[in-house]
Structure formats: C-alpha cells, structure tokens
C-alpha cells in the first residue's frame, strides 16, 4: 500500500486524534472568552511553572545549568532566550528540554520523556528564567544554526500529507478565518516566545512542538516526533519569526 494511502487509513484510528480534530473546529464561545479574560489574570499554568521550579532545584538550579552550558551564571537568562541552540558537546542544535534530559542523565537520575508532564513543567520554568528579555536566537551564529534554520524554513513551506497543505498555507494568511478560527500570524503574535502555554481547549500545558503536532494532524500531515532534528528546526524557524518581530519571552502563554 502506498504510504500516503496508508496514512489516510490510519487517520483517526486513534480516538484522541479524532477528538482533537473535532474539538479544534469550534472557536471560542462568549463563555469561553469570559473564561479567557479571567484566566489571563491567573494563568493555571503558573502552577506548572512552580512545579517545574521544584524539579529544577533538584537538578541543582541555575548554577548547575550554567555550568553545564559552560557560561557565566549571570548570563544564563539572556542565554536561555537564544534556544534552540547548537550545543557542541551534545553534537546538535537542541532545545532546552533536551539539555535538561542530559543533565538528568549525568546526575544519574531517570530522564523525563520529552512528552512527559514533568519535562513540560521543567521546560516551562527554565524558559521562564528568560521572561521579559528579548528573544535573541541567532540563526547565523554557526553553520549548524544556519542549517537548522534552513531546514525549518523548508519544512514550514513544504506541502505534505494527504491534504497537500504546508504550515505556510494557513499561517501566511493572518486574519482570515479557518472554521471560525482566526489564523494566527506566528511572528506578529509571538508564537515563538509564548510556549509552553496553557491550552484552554485541552486544560493543560503544552509545548510549542506539541502544539505544532496538533496542527500537523489537523492538516493531514504525519506529525513529526518531539525532539527530532526536524521538529527542533521548525522551532528554530518559528522562534526566529518572533525575534524578527522584536518579541520577548513571555512564559507561560495562555492559549485557546
């Protein structure tokens, strides 16, 4: 069987996928909007960030992270706003969550899976250390970052999957409406600086990569695995769009 055809058949085999697809079709009701305003005052994700803080303490806090990254601890917040980064000793352009995994391993702790709640909380906290600072990812810093950015751009623009859509098909059309949802322009609305964020429709905290996987499923693309070179490259590209719009890190975001 042709692989596209196979995917078409597999689509929806998973109940959660089907529910997500259906759930994504409905925009905010008046009640939802009221809740959104209320939550803005008091983002439920603040609790997750706090939990992440405790987990980070167990890992040795800023001092341990700065040491691992071989930078001055005072520079840590600014350095954090530049992720995903090329970390030479890790051999790849990586996200902060992957850095934290290596730290866990080095301390002979069990590493938290990228899709685990604990890792999402940990990531949210560590990224929030860069809050209110400008996003300063440098996609020209070295050839690895250049390659990651180029790959991210290619994946953003390439039509894939059984509906023949690219990320750009929808995200280059800010303000138009897809199924009652206003299409977001990722650069202008600081997508790169606001995840992990709390998703009201799912009542939980989600990473940028997990959020992107939802779009991939909905648009008929095979969702790329978390932490893959390709997924990290997309994060590089989306983070750079936010940087180009002079945005700051604002974790945790609050999303529909």
């Amino acid at each position, binding site marked *: 069987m042709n*692989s*596209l055809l196979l*995917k078409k058949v597999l689509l929806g085999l998973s109940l959660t996928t089907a529910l997500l697809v*259906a759930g994504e*079709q409905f925009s905010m009701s008046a009640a939802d909007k009221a809740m959104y305003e209320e939550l803005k005052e008091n983002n439920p994700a603040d609790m997750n960030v706090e939990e992440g803080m405790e987990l980070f303490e167990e890992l040795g806090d800023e001092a341990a992270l700065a040491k691992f990254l071989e930078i001055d601890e005072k520079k840590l917040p600014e350095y954090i706003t530049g992720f995903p980064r090329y970390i030479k000793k890790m051999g790849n352009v990586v996200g902060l969550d992957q850095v934290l995994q290596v730290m866990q391993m080095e301390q002979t702790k069990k590493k938290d899976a990228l899709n685990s709640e604990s890792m999402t909380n940990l990531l949210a906290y560590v990224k929030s250390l860069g809050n209110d600072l400008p996003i300063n990812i440098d996609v020209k810093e070295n050839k690895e970052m250049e390659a990651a950015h180029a790959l991210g751009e290619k994946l953003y623009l390439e039509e894939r999957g059984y509906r*023949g859509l690219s990320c750009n098909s929808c995200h280059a059309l800010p303000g138009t409406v897809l199924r009652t949802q206003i299409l977001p322009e990722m650069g202008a609305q600081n997508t790169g600086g606001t995840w992990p964020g709390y998703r009201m429709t799912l009542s939980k905290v989600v990473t940028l990569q997990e959020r992107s996987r939802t779009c991939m499923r909905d648009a008929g693309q095979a969702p790329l695995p978390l932490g893959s*070179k390709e997924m990290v490259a997309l994060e590089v590209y989306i983070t750079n769009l936010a940087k180009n719009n002079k945005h700051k890190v604002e974790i945790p975001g609050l999303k529909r």
Partner: protein
Amino acid sequence: MNKSIRPFAFLSFALLAVTAVYASDMTKSYEMPDASQIVKDDLIPGATKYTMPKDCKLDDLESIARGEYMFHNLNSKNDKKENLPKGMKAPKEGEVKAYGNCVACHNIEGAVGGGTVGPPLVGYKANFMDTKVRDAQFVYQKIADPRVDANTTAMTINLTSQMFDESEICDITAYVIQAKKEKIRKK
C-alpha cells in the same frame, strides 16, 4: 616527532578520545528521533494536470449529494448510515475516511462556520459558470490539484495527494458548479 613533546601529545590525544566518548554518550542521553523518513513518505508528487473523465455525471442528483456531503464534512466519524448519500464509499471497519472539509475555508450555501481562507463559492453557477468565467474542467482541476495555476496556494490538493479518487472529484465538482436549492442540506 620530538621525544620531549611526545608524552604531551599522547596526553592530549587521550583527552580527545575521552571527550569524544563523552560526547557520543551525550548524544545518546537525550531524545532525538529521526524524522527524515516520515517527512519523505509524506511528500506528494508535483503539480499534475488532469482531464475531467468523460463519465463524470455533473447533473446527476446522487453525485451532487455525495459531493455536498464530502464538501461539508471533515471525516466519516459522524457518519450516520441513514444520512449517508446513496453510493458513498463506506470506510472499512475500524477506519475513518477523510472528507474534503472544504467549508473550513469556503463559504457556500448552507455552510455552517464557513471560513474565509478561500473565496466564497456561493452562487457559483450564476456567477462563474453561466457567465463562462469558469467551466467544469477548471473546477475539476482546481479541486484535483490547484497548483497548476497557483503554485503556493492554500487550497488543498485532493487527487494528486490520493485523498480522493477521480469519481469523488467528479462528485465534488458537480456539487460546486450546480445551482443549490434552498435548504439543500439536511442537518
């Protein structure tokens, strides 16, 4: 090599080797699955020209009804046997068939939550067919593979991507180009 620097050279070599092992170990201590094959398998062939099959029955009411169903629905999850238009290909046991979900982007008669990503297709027969601005072949091609005249369009690719087969593209074309009666859709 000069004898006196040899121990030093050896030492730095040993250090390098240790670092290398350390680095390769580190690569294994975080998740970075390879997705290149997933991306490759997901690519679709380039823009393809199609000729509308001669046996497309563009004014067949059953064909139009099937087209309408595929236009307005996301997938077969909410199918109810009694509402299913005659001749719809049923998904196999345990499978979910993806439909056009065209209404996500296009407004049309009877649309629920029609989007604005694509142009409205309301009054398509009167506005575009009767005036000869468009013909059935144009609409068929547009639905089958819109890239032939708009390379980076947001419009979905429905035949080249194997989302639908030819007869299903006929059905959807028929629905788009025919006059719609009031309340043609049963909710």
